[in-house]
């Protein structure tokens, strides 16, 4: 891992990273109030008197959110705690109506686990999971609507979050991003979080420290609320550099909470350890300890879908895909489903190529997900089927793909309507070959001593037939006519 070290003026430094990921639980109702959860509702339209902290209102735990947390814990191969508790984290802020957040400090629902993370190059590493706990989200303060006032929207107040805390097991910005990407894929596959980072449904607090290779852990700074892969990497790069510079100048790192400013690409101090809140955690007396039945945990375990890591391995083995293609196709549930529907009994590697290179390439260029693909999986499968049975060439297939994308009918309809069927009629091809050889006697002679020169003849025949000739048949005809072999 020496390639991930930072080279400072005085030698190499190692970055040590641990992440706290806040994942909004996919649930129609909030963690304790039964109020609806949704993005895009009018301000304060989804707020119950519990969420607004009215006097005498009490929290009642949402069973489904607990099930989602257990499911996630099982997906992380983590220990599910049969007994957990809810604690209050006390602080004042207008978007925190109760004056405390209900969280799980002392006894989280999920304990230690591990996540195997795959890098882009196919190599893998393991990130230890320290814990996962359930907690309420706060509301939203809007400071820029009025110069003198802050507006508060409590729609998000009380929404269920899973805080997933990793061990400090990452050593580079890329690995941190890969970890979040893998975790996001897992959550989406489990259906426990939609992973929508733009809406803030998945965000990370990044703990960054640096040290000389082989030395003990350095003092860390926590960068709060980073909500995109790019920002996570930028924040880490900047923060690590900042810390190295301080240390190399003989300074000391102050433990503090920092904010990442995406506009400037830098982190800024938010509050130091001395200014840190004393949250006065204590067990929430309004809630009983959460006790889970073993049988229920097993029921949830049995209901788990195929997880991304297992699916990736299966795709590689069952379909003979490259590690890269398997990774891309299993990164999202919808992609895997699309691929398997398209592949059917066809040449899976070919389907994978078309899905990854052509379809996903085009979709990503237009910033769309596979769910918004104008080409249905069956339609792409039909196109690959036409290549497989020799009806069209791969080259023609690109044209057909464009027309499919434009919604001009099914692959077969397009091929028939536009006369794109590949010419495999040896008679027609023989005539074309004879004509070509007769017109180019010296080239025909040269092929006899330099067989690779046959390529020119193949190209000419293909051109002659408007690309519709079956290249394999053309090759065979030319070899016979030119007397090679």
């Amino acid at each position, binding site marked *: 891992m020496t390639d991930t070290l930072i080279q400072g003026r005085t030698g190499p430094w190692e970055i040590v990273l641990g992440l706290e990921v806040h994942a909004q639980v996919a649930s129609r109702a909030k963690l304790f109030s039964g109020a609806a959860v949704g993005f895009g509702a009018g301000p304060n339209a989804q707020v119950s*008197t519990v969420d*607004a*902290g*009215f*006097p*005498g*209102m*009490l*929290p*009642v*735990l949402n069973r489904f959110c607990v099930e989602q947390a257990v499911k996630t814990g099982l997906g992380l191969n983590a220990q599910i705690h049969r007994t957990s508790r809810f604690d*209050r984290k*006390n602080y*004042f802020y*207008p978007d925190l*109506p*109760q*004056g*405390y957040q209900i969280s799980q400090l002392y006894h989280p629902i999920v304990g230690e686990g591990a996540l195997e993370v795959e890098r882009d190059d196919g190599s893998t590493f393991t990130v230890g999971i320290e814990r996962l706990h359930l907690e309420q989200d706060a509301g939203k303060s809007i400071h820029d609507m009025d110069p003198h006032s*802050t507006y*508060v929207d409590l729609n998000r107040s009380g929404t269920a979050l899973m805080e997933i805390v990793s061990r400090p097991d990452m050593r580079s910005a890329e690995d941190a991003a890969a970890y979040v990407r893998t975790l996001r894929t897992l959550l989406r596959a489990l259906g426990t979080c939609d992973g929508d980072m733009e809406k803030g449904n998945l965000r990370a607090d990044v703990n960054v420290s640096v040290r000389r290779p082989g030395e003990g852990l350095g003092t860390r700074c926590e960068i709060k609320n980073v909500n995109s892969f790019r920002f996570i990497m930028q924040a880490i790069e900047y923060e690590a550099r900042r810390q190295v510079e301080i240390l190399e100048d003989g300074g000391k790192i102050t433990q503090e909470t920092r904010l990442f400013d995406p506009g400037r690409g830098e982190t800024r101090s938010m509050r130091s350890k001395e200014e840190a809140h*004393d949250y*006065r*955690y*204590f067990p929430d*007396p*309004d*809630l*009983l300890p959460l006790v889970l039945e073993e049988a229920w945990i097993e029921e949830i375990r049995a209901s788990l879908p195929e997880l991304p890591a297992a699916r990736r391995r299966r795709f590689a083995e069952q379909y003979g895909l490259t590690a890269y293609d398997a990774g891309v196709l299993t990164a999202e549930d919808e992609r895997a489903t699309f691929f398997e529907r398209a592949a059917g009994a066809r040449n899976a590697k070919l389907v994978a190529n078309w899905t990854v290179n052509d379809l996903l390439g085009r979709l990503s260029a237009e910033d769309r997900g596979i769910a918004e693909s104008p080409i249905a999986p069956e339609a792409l499968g039909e196109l690959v089927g036409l290549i497989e049975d020799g009806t069209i060439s791969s080259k023609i297939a690109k044209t057909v793909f464009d027309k499919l994308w434009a919604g001009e009918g099914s692959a077969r309809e397009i091929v028939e309507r536009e006369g794109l069927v590949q010419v495999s009629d040896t008679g027609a091809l023989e005539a074309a070959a004879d004509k070509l050889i007769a017109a180019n006697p010296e080239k025909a002679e040269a092929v006899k001593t330099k067989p690779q020169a046959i390529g020119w003849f193949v190209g000419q025949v293909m051109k002659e037939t408007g690309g519709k000739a079956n290249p394999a048949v053309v090759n065979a005809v030319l070899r016979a006519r030119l007397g090679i072999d």
Partner: protein
Amino acid sequence: MSELTALTLTDAVEGLRTKRFSAEEITRAHLEAMQGARTLNAFTVETPDRALEMARASDARIARGEGGPLEGAPLGVKDLFSTEGVETTAGSRILQGFKPPYESTVTANLWRDGAVMLGKLNMDEFAMGSSNETSAWGPVANPWRSRGSNASLTPGGSSGGSASAVAADLCLGATASDTGGSIRQPAAFTGTVGIKPTYGRCSRWGMVAFASSLDQAGPITRSVADAALMLRSMSGHDPKDSTSLAVETPDFTQFVGRDVRGLRVGVPREYRVDGMPAEIEQLWEQGVAWLRDAGCEIVEVSLPHTRYALPAYYIVAPAEASSNLARYDGMRFGYRAGGGTLTEVYENTRAQGFGDEVKRRILIGTYVLSAGFYDAYYLRALKVRRRIADDFDRAWETCDALLTPSTPTAAFALGDKDADPVTMYLNDVFTVPANLAGLPGISVPAGLDANGLPLGLQLVGRALDEGTLFSLAGALEQAAAFRSKPERWWS
């Protein structure tokens, strides 16, 4: 004064059912009594229009041969219980003008059973107090006065308004709440009956929270049978309160008057505190004798951790309160003070909105939960709490209920103890252990002291065994034959 207001709840309900008088008549009689007793300051809000409307609806149901177990009975509601559309302040300026858009489960249960709401009853601010002097709306006066004195006495607290109103015949019964003795102590000071049921028996939903793990609703009434009748309606599992117990509510009224022969009654030796007036000591002995005569077996028991109950209570309760009261920030409801910055608005709102006792407890609670003090105070208090519960569990091996005095003194004069909070806190010394252990406790009027002031005896029972308490309380009530009423000086 109308005879209708002097009835017990049980008799009134029977009279209504048999149409000897109408709900409207008995409601009007109470509204009139309330009007004549404003000097007691027992009610913070009177709701005559709603009362008459509810009474007429009751009369209509009775006419149709329908009606619940409390049909047409006018009751008072401690201002801790949220009442839909009716100002609910919990005795605090910070909730001034707050009209909840919801009805507490306990009061909703009472209205479901046909009861009529007369108004909201004064109380110590956020139920923090033992004399009703911490109310933002002024203290409540006890209808009782020392013989030959015109000095205003406390009705106790925090349910002082409830106790005073019931004692002065302003309502047939009242809801109250008890975190450390707030039902039993005022009941003892006013010659009324008050029961704090098992923690979780009554839903806390819609009850303004003081200390969530200790708060429990209960009734204050003029007889043991009335308390059983009213508690039966207030109780019941509520899915909206996670700490509400999923148990059936027994018909408590069936236990009153039941034979108590063979029941073992424990007398805890640790309750003989230093400086306890001889009169209290004598009353306690009298109570023991009454129960022995009724056929109970008297056993001496030991609750060795009793002396730590009060200190533990004054850590746990303020800790929870400091967090429960964080929501009163002036942002969404109630009182808001001005200020140039957010912090100023918070500070001014809470400085002006809360009274001194509430501030004191928020400070104590914040302190004991702070980093570095949590283990030494809060966690240790939780351990003590466990020991106290263990003490009771051990006692239940040899007895079925405990008999103790309700309070260490009779009602004291307003202004007498407000200078020293610890003296005030000592009022709860006999009542607090039952809250810490979540056990039911009832105070029954047992006699008058030399000054003519009522004194109460307390029975504490096993969790969910209110039935035994009602039987024993009924026996005490019968033996004591407490019939005294305060002299009517207020109207």
